[in-house]
């Protein structure tokens, strides 16, 4: 089986002019994306994350045909993005969290109708897809409102629909939950989960909200300084960067001498251990403690892992 997205040594350089001295400016070449290899199979849901300026959006722009790579090759749906841009555009959907694909002054209904003509979708297919989105995203209450009057959450639901009406094989989402409130975030996430569960749409999602990833993506690609620093499951990420599970012990009385490796909190009534690897030996040791009231194991937080990943200089 061939991959839906294939990239080999994808690289994008930008020339920036840096001020040196009072008048002189020096040209410097900066690689925003520095040799990214990526292979995504049909139906995968891929989380693409990294700190600001890591090269996430630039990668997406190269894969969608907006930017020409400086080096490397990319194929999406078997097409080369930039030279075959218009053919590719019919087979992918793109949602930019911060840019709109909709007509500002028109009701959503009209925007959807225009998109049908632009993508030349058969009326029956269009109607069926729209019906599905209307049901899943609760669009009915604002279908006749001009886009400029929609709330961000409503607009994003409209954007998602707009990107799907031509039945794309791959959906690229660049920060689809940015700025949304909790309820709207949930709505977007459950919709994407539902979409991905079908298995025929491939999702590539960049985000700063790791809850998006935990909820949606089994596979996670972390990029930093233009390079892929992790490609695998979330579990693999934890394993690789130390799955710091925490064992939290509450005591009836303050402990006089805290055991080795414990962080003492709440006036000595609480002990916190960070555990690398299996927790059983630690727990066995703690069970012997006098005045033990409660013991909890906290699963590692992906946010914490990623923060450590971003902060570690020269990550592998």
């Amino acid at each position, binding site marked *: 089986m061939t991959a839906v997205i294939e990239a080999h040594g994808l690289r994008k350089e930008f020339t920036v002019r840096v001020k040196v001295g009072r008048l002189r400016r020096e040209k410097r070449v900066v690689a925003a994306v520095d040799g990214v290899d990526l292979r995504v199979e049909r139906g995968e849901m891929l989380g693409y994350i990294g700190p600001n300026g890591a090269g996430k959006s630039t990668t997406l722009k190269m894969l969608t045909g*907006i*930017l020409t790579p400086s080096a490397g090759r990319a194929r999406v749906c078997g097409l080369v993005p930039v030279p075959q841009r218009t053919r590719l555009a019919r087979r992918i959907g793109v949602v930019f969290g911060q840019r709109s694909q909709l007509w500002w002054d028109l009701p959503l209904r009209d925007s959807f109708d225009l998109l049908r003509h632009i993508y030349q979708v058969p009326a029956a297919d269009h109607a069926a897809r729209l019906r599905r989105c209307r049901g899943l995203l609760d669009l009915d209450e604002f279908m006749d409102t001009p886009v400029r009057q929609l709330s961000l959450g409503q607009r994003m639901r409209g954007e998602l629909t707009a990107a799907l009406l031509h039945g794309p094989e791959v959906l690229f989402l660049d920060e689809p939950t940015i700025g949304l409130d909790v309820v709207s975030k949930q709505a977007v996430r459950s919709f994407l989960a539902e979409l991905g569960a079908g298995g025929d749409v491939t999702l590539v999602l960049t985000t700063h909200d790791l809850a998006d990833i935990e909820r949606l993506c089994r596979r996670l690609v972390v990029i930093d300084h233009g390079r892929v620093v992790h490609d695998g499951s979330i579990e693999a990420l934890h394993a690789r960067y130390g799955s710091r599970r925490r064992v939290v012990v509450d005591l009836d009385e303050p402990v006089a001498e805290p055991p080795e490796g414990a962080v003492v909190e709440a006036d000595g009534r609480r002990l916190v251990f960070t555990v690398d690897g299996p927790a059983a030996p630690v727990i066995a040791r703690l069970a012997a403690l006098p005045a033990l009231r409660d013991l909890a194991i906290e699963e590692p937080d992906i946010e914490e892992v990623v923060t450590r990943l971003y902060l570690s200089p020269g990550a592998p």
Partner: protein
Amino acid sequence: MVDLRPYVALFRGQARSLTSYRASFALELSTNVFATVMDVATVLVLFRVSRTLGGFTLHEALLVVGLSSCAFAAADLAVGNIERIKFYVRTGLLDAVLVRPLGALPQLLLMDLPLRKASRCAFGTGVLVVAAATAGIEWTPGRVALVVAAPLAGMVFFSAIFVVSAAVAFWWVETGEIGNAFTYGGRDFTSYPITVYSGWFRRLFAYGMGFAFVAYYPALALLGRADPLGLPVWVGYASPSVAVVAAVAATAVWRVGIRHYRSTGS
């Protein structure tokens, strides 16, 4: 063969958007008429001071103004909003355009439908009709064809100028008003018989950039006047070919520009 239906749909969408701002549309329509009226008024005022302008009488000069403002207004109506490319590049709207399965340039042109400029176009045509009727032209089939073809060729020519000066934004986003020097500057240049200009300035704008072929030479051909600058009469009939050359050049510049954008980003 390019399927035009998606573009027609885009056009309809913009027309529908406009109806959501009726009052401001009416206001813009009237202010735009005012701008064109001023162009013509300037010429009229000049003739209060002098009986001739660069060797041309009032009626002859009006023919030049009519051809010029008709061509410019039509081009401004059709592609004038390409000036906003700076804004599209800066805000990243161009990215949204590039992920649709249509050509980038036609999409950008259809993103804002400046119907308000239609009033200028109508006024320019009015001036041209009046000037052509009162300038004492001896009508031949060739001249009838020319009086129709010249404004159309001028429109294509100005459109090319618009596209080229907008494409500069692909290299320098902060182009400011440089582009206007050639678009609005070009319109002002073509509003007068080129005999009022002199030296390198005339050579550059009239011949180097081709502005003389928008209104001046077609007007001479219509009037049957010999060119005081010595070019033969048939030059007036060459304006469509000049327009074609300009359009081809503009398309090339646009292509290079958008390729540059895609290799540098915003």
